[in-house]
């Protein structure tokens, strides 16, 4: 059983490495972003299988952190990719927007 786990985790690792081709070739920034998502999910799968194979239960917690970091990484990419004029104006920075001012 342990051999099956190790072979499968190595196979999933090969899939992860194949995703690097998309990072290098992907013509747009969004292609590279989605490959980051692929890395996160395959990393989670490898960690979970290894946790079962070698019996280190802490790897499941590491997989949990990977899943959360994957979500945060995509949001950070999007924020970095969006142009500044799409941001919402700061509340209170527009003249006359403060509450309590009578006509």
């Amino acid at each position, binding site marked *: *059983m342990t051999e*099956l*786990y190790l072979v*499968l985790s190595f*196979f*999933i690792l090969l*899939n992860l490495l*194949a*995703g690097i*081709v*998309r990072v290098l070739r992907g013509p*747009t*920034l*969004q*292609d590279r*972003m*989605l*490959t980051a*998502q*692929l890395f*996160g*999910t*395959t990393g*989670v*799968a490898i960690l*979970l*299988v290894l946790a*079962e194979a070698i019996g280190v*239960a802490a790897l*499941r*917690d590491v*997989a*949990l952190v990977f*899943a*959360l970091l*994957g*979500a945060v990484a*995509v*949001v950070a*990419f*999007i924020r970095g*990719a*969006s142009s500044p004029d*799409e941001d919402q104006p700061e509340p209170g920075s527009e003249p006359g927007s403060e509450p309590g001012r009578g006509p």
Partner: protein
Amino acid sequence: MSILDWATAALLIAGAFFFLAGTVGVLRFPDVYNRLHALTKADNLALGLTVLGLMLQAGSWTVVLKLLLVWLLVLLAGASGAQLIADSAVRAGIQLWERR
């Protein structure tokens, strides 16, 4: 190997197959939106089958719940991340691929 071990092996091999399908989709599909399709479908399904197979081998209920939690988090992250990436692609003006 017991019947539980055979079931785990079958589920894990199916999950690995879907990881391969997802990677092939990301590498071979013609534009960003198609690649997002391949990525999220295969990732949810592949990780789901892998987690299901590992749940059968778990020693206690806390491990089962932790595995389930990891899968749900990856589902949520994948779904919202795919929507954000697609929105960013539309804003950047990336056209849908047409069959020529």
